């Protein structure tokens, strides 16, 4: 399914025996995954099985939680993500993240783009404007906001805010996008819009998306990873191409989950 060109900048990620603890309790254990470049990988599974934790360990956002300990191995291209000398600022520029709840900064729409771009050393006004416009066009928001770039980003609707957050991440030209239930706080129409734009971006980024919406996973994903939690914490039960996992899963847990029989 690898649809992108050879010169596409996006990178593959892998995890090996990745285990994450909050204090003494494990959120998930021994997760070994291949996340192929330019594909959409969907993470599904019941609440509390460690999907958000897994996602935020990929860009080391878990560093913010003092009690959190991550062991194992994560690679992004050739980069050892968990190595102590990894430059996390550069890492997070390569890996964009969108959260469950839209979190635009309480500044103007324009400043939501200008601030991170400036932080990454883009100083020229013209380039900032051009990148802002390109990113907003990518998510279909440009025509809706072109006249109100100076207005507060918080005046946008929830769906527009989420697309703004997506565009803000795109403006930094990441290689990987992590999306944590990006549509769960949205109404079906806004949700469909976000989903459409995700699909239109397909092939330009490596995407990892957490979703509770199995139909959505089926529509947009190339590969699906099924997380499950038991007493000892979360683990990956099964992963594979989307059709294989939905049509003829091997594990009975997966079969039941994708048929909507529990979870």
């Amino acid at each position, binding site marked *: 399914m690898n649809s992108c060109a050879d010169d596409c900048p996006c990178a593959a990620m892998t995890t090996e025996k990745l285990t994450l603890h909050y204090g003494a309790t494990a959120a998930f254990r021994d997760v070994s995954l291949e996340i192929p470049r330019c594909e959409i990988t969907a993470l599904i599974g019941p609440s509390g099985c460690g999907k958000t934790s897994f996602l935020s360990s990929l860009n080391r956002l878990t560093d913010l939680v003092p009690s959190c300990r991550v062991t194992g191995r994560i690679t992004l291209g050739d980069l050892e993500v968990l190595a102590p000398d990894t430059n996390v600022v550069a890492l*997070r520029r390569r890996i964009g993240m969108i959260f469950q709840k839209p979190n635009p900064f309480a500044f103007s729409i324009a400043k939501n783009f200008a601030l991170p771009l400036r*932080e990454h050393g883009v100083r020229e006004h013209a380039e900032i404007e051009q990148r802002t416009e390109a990113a907003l066009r990518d998510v279909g928001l440009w025509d809706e906001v072109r006249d109100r770039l100076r207005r507060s980003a918080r005046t946008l609707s929830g769906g527009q805010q989420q697309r703004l957050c997506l565009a803000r991440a795109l403006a930094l030209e990441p290689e990987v996008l992590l999306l944590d239930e990006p549509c769960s706080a949205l109404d079906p129409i806004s949700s469909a819009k976000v989903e459409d734009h995700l699909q239109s971006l397909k092939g330009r980024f490596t995407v990892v998306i957490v979703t509770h919406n199995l139909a959505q996973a089926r529509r947009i994903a190339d590969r699906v990873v099924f997380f499950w939690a038991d007493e000892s914490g979360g683990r990956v039960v099964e992963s594979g191409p989307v059709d294989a996992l939905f049509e003829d899963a091997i594990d009975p847990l997966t079969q039941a989950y994708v048929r909507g029989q529990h979870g």
Partner: protein
Amino acid sequence: MSLGTSDSNLTARRRKAAAFRWSCAALTSATIVLLAILIFHVCKQGLAWLDWDFLTSFQSSRPENAGIKPALVGTLWLISLTACIAVPVGVAAAIYLEEYARPSRLNTLIEVNLANLAGVPSIVYGILGLAIFVRGLGLDRSILSGALTMALLVLPVIIMASREAIRAVPPSLRQASFALGATQWETIRHHVLPSALPGILTGVILALSRAIGETAPLVMVGAATYVTFLPDGPMDSFTALPIQIFNWASRPQAEFEKLAAAGIIVLLAVLLVMNGVAVFIRHRSRKGVS
């Protein structure tokens, strides 16, 4: 058993709620009435003496010539200098404790001590100021000595209020910033501080308002009561409003008591202006944020 849906239960609960509401209202109005009586009393005594001459004259042994100019200027000097010292140090300390310090025994110790320091009587700070700044560092009985002492006095309050405000910044804001590859300093500078600013400002103004009225530490570090010149710089000697008020109030003649009342009105006016500025800035920054 029904879950409090029966009529009698509901009436009793409503009655309790009403009783609570009215006792709160009564207590609030009691405080306001007391304050009003106090202000009325002060105004009755002092307003007649409050005129341009009073604001622009120096101290004098004859009440009709006496004025509050050096004390007013001294207080403005003192408070500005105190703010210049205490606000950067206090906010920096709060940022360090909230954003950088890892939980450790030392930090717990610092935390407990901060809370304790906020409750230490101001005269103790005065003694400290006298020993360290006036004598130890040889700063003499200057505005700088007074401001440094006042800064020590208000620091714990500023640090605690700023920490509170920084802690109240939603984690989602930090996450958003870090996820976009901001450094810790950029996150603090661009997101945490602007969002904590209203809270920090409230703490600063409360602390400085307390400092304006403090008399004891200034007596210790030797603010003069009879000053015939305006201070030119931070190394000059000075007097301040509460010292001047205390000085007048302790004299036997009735006229001086009226002067003291007029001085109190000036002090209250300064406080009112400071709080007004704080409300204004808070309002503006909130408009910017939401």
